[in-house]
């Protein structure tokens, strides 16, 4: 699949923002490290909302006909994209309510915090299911896709939360542990996803055409002299060496470097978070670039 940069940025930025807000609300609920101050929660909450909003704005850049974008709220019953839009739109007023509850020290803020956590998880799950529900793309059509989106969003969010925590009087040790745990869990989920991606797909061109023949079927001519929408969108070839370099960058910047930084120098939490986000941009780019659509078979791909 052709990786659209607007979508790559959208999923990484919104993921981090949603992860940050969910963890912020949980940290506030359980008074992690002695609890966060009002100023910390408000600044962290605003940062999370800015990240989510930036992601959503970026996602609309992907639309070829954005004047109809409002209609994306109308197919909640069937479409994951519609669900994502509805829940994401509901997320902002809910967060505003929660932050207001924090600011005015309201007794119901704990309840609002719980709702923030639940809705953040729901939005992340819906975003992932936009891709996870697509049957023609074998690499995505697995529960590992939502698991990856949830864990990676929370891992990057935990590093941002660590930055929020170290800028106040809070004891940061629990935040370091939280970030390390989520980074490890995210790395494990990504490892499982990559292991599954590496396995050969079952479908061949002959199978996709449905012709009962033992002979190998190959493409003679795709029927057009230049690229089409289909070849541009679905026939994205990625050089093996380039993919290997990017994967190394994912492991180094997305997981290893932020974990080391967070463990050794919690003061540099912002640097760790930025490194992680850079690594996740590479990870998300690969998520698209390495996914193979059945349409690629009809254009001559050996296996998808």
């Amino acid at each position, binding site marked *: *699949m052709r990786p659209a940069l607007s979508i790559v940025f959208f999923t990484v930025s919104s993921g981090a923002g949603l992860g940050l807000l969910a963890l912020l609300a949980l940290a506030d609920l359980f008074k992690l490290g002695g609890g966060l101050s009002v100023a910390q929660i408000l600044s962290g909450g605003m940062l999370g909302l800015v990240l989510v909003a930036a992601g959503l704005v970026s996602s609309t850049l*992907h*639309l*070829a*006909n*954005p*004047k*109809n*974008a409002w*209609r*994306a709220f*109308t*197919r909640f019953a*069937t*479409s*994951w*994209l*519609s669900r994502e*839009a509805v829940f994401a739109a509901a997320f902002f007023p809910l967060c505003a309510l929660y932050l207001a509850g924090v600011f005015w020290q309201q007794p119901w803020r704990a309840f609002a915090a719980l709702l923030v956590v639940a809705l953040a998880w729901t939005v992340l799950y819906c975003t992932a299911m*936009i891709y996870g*529900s*697509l*049957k*023609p*793309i074998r690499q995505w059509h697995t529960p590992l896709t939502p698991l990856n989106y949830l864990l990676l969003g929370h891992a990057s969010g935990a590093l941002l939360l660590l930055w929020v925590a170290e800028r106040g009087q809070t004891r940061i040790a629990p935040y370091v542990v939280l970030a390390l745990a989520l980074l490890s869990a995210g790395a494990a989920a990504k490892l499982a996803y990559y292991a599954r991606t590496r396995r050969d797909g079952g*479908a061949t*061109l*002959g199978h*996709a*055409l*449905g*012709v*009962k*023949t033992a*002979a*190998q*079927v*190959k*493409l*003679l*001519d*795709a*029927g*057009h*002299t*230049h*690229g*089409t*929408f*289909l070849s541009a*969108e*679905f026939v994205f070839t990625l050089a093996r060496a380039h993919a290997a370099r990017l994967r190394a960058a994912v492991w180094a910047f997305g997981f290893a470097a932020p974990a080391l930084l967070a463990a050794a120098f919690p003061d540099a939490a912002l640097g760790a978070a930025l490194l992680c986000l850079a690594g996740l941009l590479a990870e998300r780019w690969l998520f698209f670039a390495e996914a193979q*659509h*059945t*349409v690629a078979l*009809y*254009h001559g791909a050996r296996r998808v």
Partner: protein
Amino acid sequence: MKLGLVIDLDTCVGCHACAVACKEWNGGSALSGPLSDYEPYGKEPSGVWFNRVRHYEAGEYPQNKTLNVPMSCMHCEDADCVTVCPTGASYKREDGIVLVDQDKCMGCNLCTWACPYGARELDESSGTVKKCTLCADRIFDELLPPGDRQPACVLACPTHARHYGDFDDPGSNVSKLVAEREGFGMLPELGYKPVNRYLPPRPMPKVPVHASPQENGSAPGLAQRVAGWVNKFIER
């Protein structure tokens, strides 16, 4: 009703007449507007097509067979392109035809990703997704003579490799063809229940292969040696 096409891979010669006729009829259709072309007379002409013909080869020479495979919307019974559509622009009609409401589409491309056959294409000019309409504006047009109430691709096919009809009616021409020739749908394991059926190419008699004299081990005869000698001097 379950309207769709039967495409005979045995008789299709890959002439692209169906694709061109489709482009011609639907380019002026009110259902989806023009099928935009980008740089039609430029170096890299490209554009929107509802129907694309690709050419394949099965097996190795001389036991090989060319397969010409036209692909367009299969008008799936369980069409995921409709399910994933967030705006409600994609819909399936009572008669089985899957359509895109051009006034509602926001061009998010998700339906093109959900279609395993590459039957949907984004029109960069309108910013909307376009697809085969099964010529819904032809097949029900009572102003046309009954014989012309068929999709443009079916009418254009010079080898009668394309047939249109109702798969819900066991007596229809398409149902009979599928029963006779073991018609199949593509990628059935995805569960989309594609309606369009393809008729498989008839088995080809095995082409006899005579071993060359060298391979026989016997020395070439005089005539063969002369032919070989002449061939050396004649440039093709």
